[in-house]
């Protein structure tokens, strides 16, 4: 989803793996054995329920078409049909869709990182009249659902002639208020004395930003990179509205059209779904620490 984030209050960061520092008295919540057994049972059931649809997707992508709706239900393919993964490239424009999606995700991420962190520095570490009011406007619009202003935005984009070009999506996503907010939250934790000292030493504001703040904000930049990349990759509504030409389709649009066109080819549809999720899964597993940090510091993006 595009600019449809919500926000209000910063929440202190947490991490998936509790950091070693947190293993003090706070973390010493040891359970009695019986409680542990119950706890694990609930967790395993919950994890199974959460992951089952993905398991089903993966397993079905390796089945023959007819065995997907076998009675009784078969959770694993009898003979894995690896050919589905060769077939999908032949029957669909998967390659084009992937290329478009990678391009958009990369460009949007780079732009958002730059404009977002730059503006965040302005809001966190410099003073100018109207600064706080303007920041409030930024936060306020995060609470406005994108669906509420997508019509005027669309009219404007078609007036400038950006509809049906990849640049419409770039323009739509590159200047998110969310990115500014997330980075500002992080910069607020960097002591002002650091900037003051640099100013006294004669460093310009730009120098402070590039040489001091930017190197210090690598974790926040990583969070924003991952969140932006995954959001752009997964966006459906933006491309649906703006990218009408099949040559411009992203993987989400392509997959959806594939489903309507090959609606009886359940196995291939699942193969395509797996391929659309796989890159995100890899990114997520590699950077999940930063995802969690980003979510926790900003408490939004959705």
């Amino acid at each position, binding site marked *: 989803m595009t600019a449809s984030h919500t926000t209000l209050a910063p929440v202190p960061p947490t991490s998936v793996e509790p950091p070693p520092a947190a293993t003090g008295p706070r973390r010493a919540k040891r359970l009695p054995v019986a409680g542990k057994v119950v706890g694990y049972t609930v967790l395993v059931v*919950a994890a199974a329920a*959460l992951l089952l649809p993905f398991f089903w997707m993966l397993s079905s992508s390796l089945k023959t078409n007819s065995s997907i709706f076998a009675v009784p239900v078969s959770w694993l393919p009898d003979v894995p049909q690896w050919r589905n993964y060769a077939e999908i490239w032949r029957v669909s424009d998967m390659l084009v869709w992937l290329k478009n999606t990678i391009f958009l995700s990369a460009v949007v991420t780079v732009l958002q990182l730059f404009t977002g962190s730059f503006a965040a520095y302005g809001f966190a570490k410099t003073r100018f009249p109207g600064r706080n009011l303007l920041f409030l406007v930024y936060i306020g619009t995060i609470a406005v659902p994108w669906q509420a202003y997508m019509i*005027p*935005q669309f009219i404007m984009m078609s007036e400038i002639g950006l509809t049906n070009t990849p640049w419409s999506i770039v323009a739509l996503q590159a200047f998110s208020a969310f990115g500014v907010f997330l980075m500002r939250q992080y910069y607020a934790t960097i002591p002002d004395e650091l900037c003051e000292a640099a100013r006294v030493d004669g460093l310009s504001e730009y120098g402070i930003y590039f040489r001091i703040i930017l190197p210090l904000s690598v974790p926040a930049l990583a969070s924003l990179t991952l969140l932006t990349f995954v959001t752009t990759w997964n966006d*459906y509504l933006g491309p649906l509205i703006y990218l009408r030409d099949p040559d411009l389709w992203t993987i989400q649009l392509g997959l959806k059209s594939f489903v309507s066109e090959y609606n009886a080819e359940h196995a291939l549809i699942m193969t395509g779904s797996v391929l659309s999720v796989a890159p995100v899964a890899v990114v997520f597993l590699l950077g999940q620490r930063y*995802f969690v940090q980003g979510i926790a510091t900003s408490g939004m993006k*959705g």
Partner: protein
Amino acid sequence: MSTTTVGGPRAGGADRARRWHRARRSLHGVSFVLPNFLGFGLLTLGPVVALFAISFTNWNVFGKAKWVGLDNFTRLLKDTSFHRALLNTLYYSALHIPLTFALSLGLALLLDRKLRGVAFFRTAAFFPYVTSIVAIAIAWNLLFSKDFGPINQVLGFFGVADPPGWTASSSWSMPAVIIVGVWREMGYYMLLFLAGLQTVPPELHEAARIDGANAWQRFRNVTLPCLRPTTFFVTVMLTIGSFKVFDLILVMTDGGPGQSTLVLSQYIYQKGLVENRFGYASAISVVLFALCMVVTAVQFAVNRRRNG
């Protein structure tokens, strides 16, 4: 820089220098915000403001905008599809908000412990939230298939004689969408709750334990009050998130069968971007906007009274 001598002949110059210095710093600050603000102002702020103006016009794609006052809004009052979309949005929210809230809080409490493999469970819970709606909607649609779908087969195994038709049935399509919505989002809110739980001082729990409070009493009287900023935040976000639900429904049911899952966002899309009736669609958008703002304002007021 010039030295300041109060009342001396150079005071004016120093004043000017200080003012110049301050203006320069302001200019620097503005220059940082400007690149983002140009895009943000043009593409977000502008449209938000324009929305209200357009909602008072009759504007179709090839025509000129014509001012019609409150026409669009009076027409909305009689539009049965709009009523349906509004009610469905409230239906979705009425189930989605409390279910997601309870399940994500429960999951967070469960995972805020020293258990082996807790990191894996947290990752598993969060994963649905980062995957694409299209892919998960497709997978769930197959799982929900009426006759041979795994879910109905499992229900049959447990003795449910007449399992629901899910997305094929107008009375079960909304529950099906809600199940997937809750499933997808609970991991995200779980993370927020986990972050909030880190702020609960362990001494308070200790003290309550010594005073003989049982687990439920400790939860009620220690955890929940300390968690209030988080619960407030989660409630606001969940509400806005539910009001604007769209992608999931568009891909899973396309609003159907009939209009059983038609929601406000989708109706905006339909009127505005499919039928190109910009004015009318903007009027619906204003309703969605107002709904979000009013509910958020009420939540803020309630929260403030509780804290005050």
